[in-house]
């Protein structure tokens, strides 16, 4: 399969801040590709460049075989872009927004109905409601609908589930899986690690750089050290106790427990329990676990030489 999207050495500066610093990756046709990164990682800048709204300072990007700089016209008719911030007309109704975006793409809601039907039936009860008065989940569905109405070959979804409740997020990802099955390539960014495992492949973006790019299982294989989940009744004290332990490589709260890695290749569990006991924490349970995507992400960030966090 050919690539739906290729970038080479993308670099974008805003003043002194380098929002993107040499991003190179490619997305295969029909792939559901995730970009994972914290706020300020450069996700939105990357999406704006791919959506032909922003020109990179260096490097190039090819979307569906068209250069974003020279052939932006061809890209715009073939791509559906959903910005991170809700960008539909809040003072127009659901139906008016849909009709408007359908007509400016030279099509109509009827012509694309088979594609958007599943979302549209959920929106239909609120057809005459102003977009600004919809709930967060409904707003996202409307925005997705508007991005799909011209039958794009590629969807660029910038943090589509930020600020959306858990149920709506699940529904949203189910819809994405369906569109992928229809052959639409999807590039989606998210700050939520649990969503990352639903992607075919994913890339970590941190401070404008790509730290890793692989399938979800390939990503977790990057995590080589044994990882332990430590829990005790006094969970909140474990992290500080572990951080003063001389063999600790990392310790951070994760759900109900604390995830721990040791500096040594083979950690001594008894010594660890003794140390915690000396700090007054008893009833400690230690289990070795498989690292998740978030664990990998955290370890990758810690391996990166520290840079000053850009603001703004």
């Amino acid at each position, binding site marked *: 399969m050919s690539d739906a999207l290729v970038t080479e050495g993308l670099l974008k500066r805003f003043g002194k801040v380098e929002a993107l610093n040499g991003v190179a990756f490619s997305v295969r046709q029909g792939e559901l590709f995730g970009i994972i990164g914290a706020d300020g990682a450069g996700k939105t800048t990357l999406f*704006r460049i791919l*959506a*032909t*709204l*922003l*020109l990179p300072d260096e490097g190039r990007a090819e979307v569906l075989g068209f250069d974003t700089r020279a052939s*932006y*016209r061809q890209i*715009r*008719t073939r*791509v559906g*872009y959903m*910005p991170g*911030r*809700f*960008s*539909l*007309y*809040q*003072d*127009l109704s659901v139906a*008016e927004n849909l009709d*408007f*975006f359908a*007509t*400016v*793409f*030279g099509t109509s809601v009827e012509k694309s109905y088979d594609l958007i039907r599943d979302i549209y039936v959920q929106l239909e009860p609120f057809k005459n409601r102003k977009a600004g008065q919809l709930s967060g989940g409904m707003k996202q569905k409307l925005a997705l609908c*508007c991005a799909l109405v011209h039958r794009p070959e590629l969807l660029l979804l910038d943090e589509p589930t930020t600020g959306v409740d858990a149920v709506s997020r699940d529904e949203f990802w189910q819809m994405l899986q369906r569109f992928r099955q229809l052959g639409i390539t999807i590039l989606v960014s998210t700050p939520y690690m649990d969503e990352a495992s639903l992607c075919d492949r994913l890339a970590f973006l941190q401070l404008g750089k790509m730290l890793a790019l692989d399938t979800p299982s390939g990503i977790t294989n990057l995590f080589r050290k044994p990882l332990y989940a430590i829990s005790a009744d006094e969970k909140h004290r474990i992290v500080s106790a572990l951080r003063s332990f001389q063999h600790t490589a990392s310790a951070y709260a994760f759900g109900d427990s604390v995830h721990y890695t040791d500096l040594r290749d083979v950690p001594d569990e008894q010594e660890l329990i003794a140390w915690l006991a000396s700090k007054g924490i008893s009833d400690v349970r230690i289990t070795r676990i498989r690292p998740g995507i978030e664990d990998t992400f955290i370890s990758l960030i810690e391996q990166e030489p520290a840079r000053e966090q850009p603001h703004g």
Partner: protein
Amino acid sequence: MNKQFNGFRGLRIVGHLLRKEFLQIFRNRGMLPIIFLIPFIQMVILSNAATFDVPEVPFHLQDFDRSALSERLIERFTSSGYFRMTGESFARTKGIDELVSGNASMVLVIPEEFEKELVSTGHARLQLMINAEDGFTAGVIRGYAEEIVGSFNQDQPALIPRSLDIGNSPPGIEIRSSGWYNPELVYSDYMVPGILVVLVTIIGLFLSGMNIVREKEIGTIDQINVTPIKRWQFITGKLLPFLIIGLAELTIGLVIARVGFHVPMLGQYWLIFMVASIYLLVLLGLGLLISTVTDSQQQAMFVSWFFSVIFILLSGLFTPIESMPHWAQNFTQINPIRHFVDIMRRVMLKGADAKDISQPMAILAIQAIAMLSLAVNRYRKVSS
């Protein structure tokens, strides 16, 4: 064939944009009432309030003569309707005090021997002390006073008891002025055409620029920019609604001017609408230009305000261009408001035709072309 089809589709997209724009304008409950109240408020309130008349000037009297003739002169002042006496005194300093305290805007001082001098020599002196804090008002007060004294002089032979029979003295030269095109010097006739210009200006400059910046502010411009909408379509879709609203406002304003103020309309309506359209294009171009260099409605509002204040003050609407310093007079040549005010007054009050106003009209047309091409050129769908 294909090209024709594309052109047709291109216009249809403009149609969709227009429909969306009007939907939003008519749904904007904060702005819609103002848009349609502006013409009424401006015409009714401003035209009445913004006159040069100074009603009932309060004056203080110091009559040191206390003669029959001085009595008559004072009566002329008080019965004229222009002046109202607020007090009387005989101490020189008291008159100044009255001016300082603001109780009086003018002190009328009639010196001793006023009657005697007038009767014996035919000349007499009066002193007027006018509060000139506001030079313009002072000038108007002086004008009123001179008019009263002048008419008093005219009637003087009949008033002065003729003790000596010197025969008929020849009447002095009498100046009779008559104001052409506005014979009764009705201020509303003069102001209303200018107020109509301000009306069109507000719509053209403020609404258009603000509208595009708003799309930037709430992010909808991104969603528009990723569509295949072309630059000319988007700009036409943004400017045309306000051209239409501007002309609608002008229509309402003209109706109020004719019906409410009986302002004469000696020229052609089509000419006014044609010039107004050109003028609106200048303003819409400026508004669009402002919107391309600003990021928020607040910035755009501030910049628009800056331009409109300067342009209105230097338009000859409130102060005559002839009384401005030379450099300011030259500056007004690039002021679109000045030319439109000029054209409106000439067409409405003098019945000027297209040929008469060809020069200011040409200036406006050049400005429209320059402003629009600059703005269109600055507007970008892609940012770097």
